[in-house]
């Protein structure tokens, strides 16, 4: 069959003529461009949370922000490993991993060490570790689909899962990131926007206490821009925490 060339064109072979070149997201110095999903610059994606997604876990939560889909389960508090030394405060063990199909190019599905460390740092300040001495709480996050702003979604979802598990916390932790693209600050960036960003700022905070538990900045920022970005994030965090709270409330109401 393969020998009969020129009779019928093979439909499945990729022809080099249809190669599309993607237009850049925005041109240099362009201030008024439209975001790929049609949102305004200071507008977040609609957030969806559902607690109690995994039955086997002490607490769990599922979060969906546009195409970013994350599931987090919390196990424990349970006895620390035998090799660990005695500790009169509890331990927090975190892990963030991606599924092999989460990213546009097929990944290895391995652990994401960077995010694991960031998740730990973002949560440890919010949990009352002294309430579970000698034990460990495990927080396992799995990114089902990566659609941009993965880490902030993981962190918010993890704090919801911790609350669902009944771990004592000072406050829920909400996380939001902004990207700097050209002259604009873009909140809650999607994957395409993240890939061409000039800088990014992520804040995780406890909105009711108005305290920042973790903050990372990369790229080139002037002080007024940092101010603007932080304010934007803090406002968004406060609103996000309200959504998370209402999700928890809805879960307990339905149980009664």
């Amino acid at each position, binding site marked *: 069959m393969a020998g009969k060339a020129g009779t019928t064109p093979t439909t499945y072979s990729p022809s080099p003529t249809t190669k599309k070149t993607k237009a850049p997201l925005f041109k240099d110095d362009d201030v008024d461009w439209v975001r790929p999903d049609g949102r305004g610059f200071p507008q977040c994606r609609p957030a969806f949370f559902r607690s109690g997604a995994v039955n086997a876990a002490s607490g769990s939560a599922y979060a969906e922000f546009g195409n970013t889909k994350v599931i987090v389960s919390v196990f424990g508090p349970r006895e620390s490993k035998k090799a660990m030394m005695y500790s009169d405060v509890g331990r927090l063990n975190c892990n963030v991993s991606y599924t092999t199909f989460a990213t546009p190019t097929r990944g290895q599905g391995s652990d994401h*060490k*960077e995010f694991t*460390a960031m998740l730990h*740092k973002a949560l*440890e*300040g*919010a949990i009352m570790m002294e309430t579970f001495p000698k034990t460990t709480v495990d927080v396992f996050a799995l990114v089902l689909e990566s659609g941009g702003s993965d880490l902030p979604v993981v962190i918010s979802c993890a704090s919801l899962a911790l609350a669902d598990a009944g771990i004592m916390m000072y406050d829920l932790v909400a996380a939001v990131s902004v990207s*700097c693209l050209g002259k604009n600050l873009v909140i809650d960036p999607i994957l395409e926007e*993240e*890939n*061409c*960003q*000039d*800088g*990014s700022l992520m804040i995780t*905070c*406890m909105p009711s*206490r*108005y*305290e*920042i*538990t*973790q*903050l*990372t*900045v*990369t*790229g*080139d*920022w*002037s*002080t007024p821009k*940092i*101010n603007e970005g*932080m304010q934007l994030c*803090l406002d968004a965090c406060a609103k996000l925490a309200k959504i998370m709270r209402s999700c928890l409330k809805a879960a307990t109401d339905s149980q009664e």
Partner: protein
Amino acid sequence: MVGLSLGEKHFIQGGIAQDLRCDGRKRLTYRPIYVETGIIPQANGSARVRMGATDVIASVKAELGRPSSLHPDKGKVSIHIDCSPTAEPSFEGRGGEELSSELSVALQLCLLGGKSGAGSGIDLRSLVVVEGKVCWDLYIDGLVVSSDGNLLDCLGAAIKAALSNTGIPRVQVTADPSSDEQPEVDISDEEFLQLDTSGIPVIVTLTKVGRHYIVDATGEEESQMSSAVSISVNRQGHICGITKRGGAGLDPSIILDMISVAKHVSEQLINKLDSEIAAAEAEEES
């Protein structure tokens, strides 16, 4: 781990509250910085930086590679930090791994800028030899020889010094650049190009102990910290990266205050470091 008695802890905290630390410094004073360059002949550039008992080595190796398809006009830079068990017994085996990866990530965040390359201390476009085909890959390796606090600032300074010391061989491209094949390159071993290091930021870590914050904390002071914010600032006074360590939360206004303090401190640090690097380079040549 630093073992301190209750009295010692109070002494450190009280000293910081009264703006007189255990070694006689004020809250915003650095320990003296010593820089040596060109200490590793095998590398393209290297430096050793000492601040008090903290001692680190940074080396830069350049290799020819292929640029990524996403950014065909840019070279690649990677940073890796190693914590030697000679510095502290707890670094033995896998013990140093956590700290190593934390430091590597923080340095990548602070020195390499955003994904598009904006805010990067190193101009990635200058590393390209043939667009889309050949570029220089810079491998920056840091080694912690001895640790007495403030590792991140010290490593940042060592990397800056090592990059100023780096000579990248001039490359002659022989094949036609328009053809699809991988061009042949001829690496000169006599002519070297210097990297432009004026844009590389310095890292200032502000460690919060009690209600005040200090720069260049020693290991003992770090054991008393509630949180620490590392801010990298370049010569123009722009922020190139921020990371936070330590569990305690911070009020947003305190963070903004820290940023302005870090900007002020970084000016002095950049000038001090530049003169030390120039002196070290002069000594190496003589």
